[in-house]
């Protein structure tokens, strides 16, 4: 096996293993504390435990799309168009779409228990859904035929346009109607109204999900690199194989 192939034979590194182990430990704490140690809510009862998944996954979904936009702008505006940024953008969007799906599913379940409905046409919910569909479109653009550079340029522009689009969608829907529970943690007055252990578990959830996000993005962008390399070298290897066949004959 050549040295370059050996270098890419695994998508894990020392750093990603540390992140992975930390993610497992913190996530285990969140599961135990969220299901056993924390009390039920006075108003919402046991259903409040969905919060420990819903809020961190929403945070990660938005973080993922910010990472995608920043990485895309680095790819487009930097003098040397490094494909590494494109792969980070793509990996982050894939993970973001997954977390956004988790946010929408857990939000619907929570809404059914607290509002009595799986779905309400509330601004934050509607904007999140539009964001979800927009990034499914972004992933579809990444799968269009063409070179790796074409993929990077097209998807980079789409990611930056989404940054323009999302505030417009949000404001139009806010004008349209509103019902969602107001932000509890980031209260504009700075008053946090939550039991100490509940708050700690929620922040632990945010930390655990962030670690999972980082782990997934690190591995995914490396598998993308391997896939790009395989596509690039596929033809060269096929020609080499044919040449070797003719020599041996």
């Amino acid at each position, binding site marked *: 096996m050549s040295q370059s192939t050996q270098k890419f034979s695994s998508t894990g590194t020392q750093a990603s293993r540390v992140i992975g182990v930390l993610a497992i430990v913190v996530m285990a704490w969140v599961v135990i504390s969220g299901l056993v140690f924390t009390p039920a809510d006075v108003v919402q009862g046991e259903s409040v435990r969905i919060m420990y998944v819903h809020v961190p996954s929403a945070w990660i979904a938005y973080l993922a799309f910010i990472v995608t936009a920043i990485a895309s702008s680095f790819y*487009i505006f930097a003098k040397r168009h490094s494909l590494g940024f494109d792969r980070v953008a793509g990996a982050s969007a894939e993970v973001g779409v997954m977390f956004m799906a988790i946010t929408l599913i857990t939000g619907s379940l929570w809404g059914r228990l607290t509002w009595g409905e799986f779905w309400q046409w509330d601004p934050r919910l509607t904007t999140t859904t*539009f964001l979800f*569909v*927009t990034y*499914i*479109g972004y992933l*579809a*653009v990444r799968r*269009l*035929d*063409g070179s790796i550079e*074409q993929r990077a*340029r*097209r998807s980079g*522009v*789409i990611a*930056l*346009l989404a940054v*323009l*689009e999302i505030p*417009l*969608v949000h*404001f*139009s*829907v806010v*004008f*349209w109607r509103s019902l969602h529970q107001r932000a509890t943690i980031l209260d504009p007055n700075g008053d946090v109204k939550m039991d100490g252990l509940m708050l700690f578990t929620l922040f632990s959830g945010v930390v655990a999900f962030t670690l999972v996000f980082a782990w997934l993005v690190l591995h995914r962008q490396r598998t993308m690199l391997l896939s790009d390399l395989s596509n690039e070298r596929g033809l060269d290897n096929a020609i080499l194989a044919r040449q070797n066949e003719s020599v041996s004959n």
Partner: protein
Amino acid sequence: MSQTPKSRVVSAVLTKDLRIEARSRVVTNQVLPFAGLIMIMFAFALDNDDVLQRVAGGLIWLATIFSLFVIVQRSFAIDTSDSALDSLRVAGIDLSAVFLGKAIALTLQLIALDVVLIAAAFLLYQVHVSAGGLVLLVTCVICATTGLGFVGTLYGGLTAGTTGRETLLPLLLLPVVAPVLIAATRATEAAFGSGGAATSEGWAWVGLLTIFAAVFGIGGSLAFGPLIDE
């Protein structure tokens, strides 16, 4: 060699697109009947005069957006089939001027389409409009179609020449045009006075439509070149 002035490129591309339409008559012979059919099918589906009168604004803009997909795909299919876009690039022409020319041509076609759709709403859905409402309606149509023209051209350029563009274009465009659908529908309802809406309520929505058109006009001019520059 001096570069062709931007205004001449915009005017040439605009004239070219409109001339193609004047000769082929696809918008008049196919897209208009398609949009009219959508209006009729909505009437069958809703089957209630009061409901139709109430939702007329939304139906006009849904029919416009569905028609937008057809016009955009056709416009770029013509440009890519003979590698016309490649020729423009090779000629060293400013691609933002090509974007503006195509966007204006698309906007003019959408305005023509909307005039017919609004007339159909008067006939089929029995909507009414006051003098003040008419001013609001005309402004709303101009602002909304300009925004749709910009965004349609931008995403049409992105999907031009790719396999599966017929299905990809709606997936990309529908979330983006959601603000136009919401704002134009509310402004049109205010112009028609649907559900007791006052005409004055519509102007804030026209403001949103103007912001949308400005954002995608500037964003599109900057992004169109890198998008089709393969």
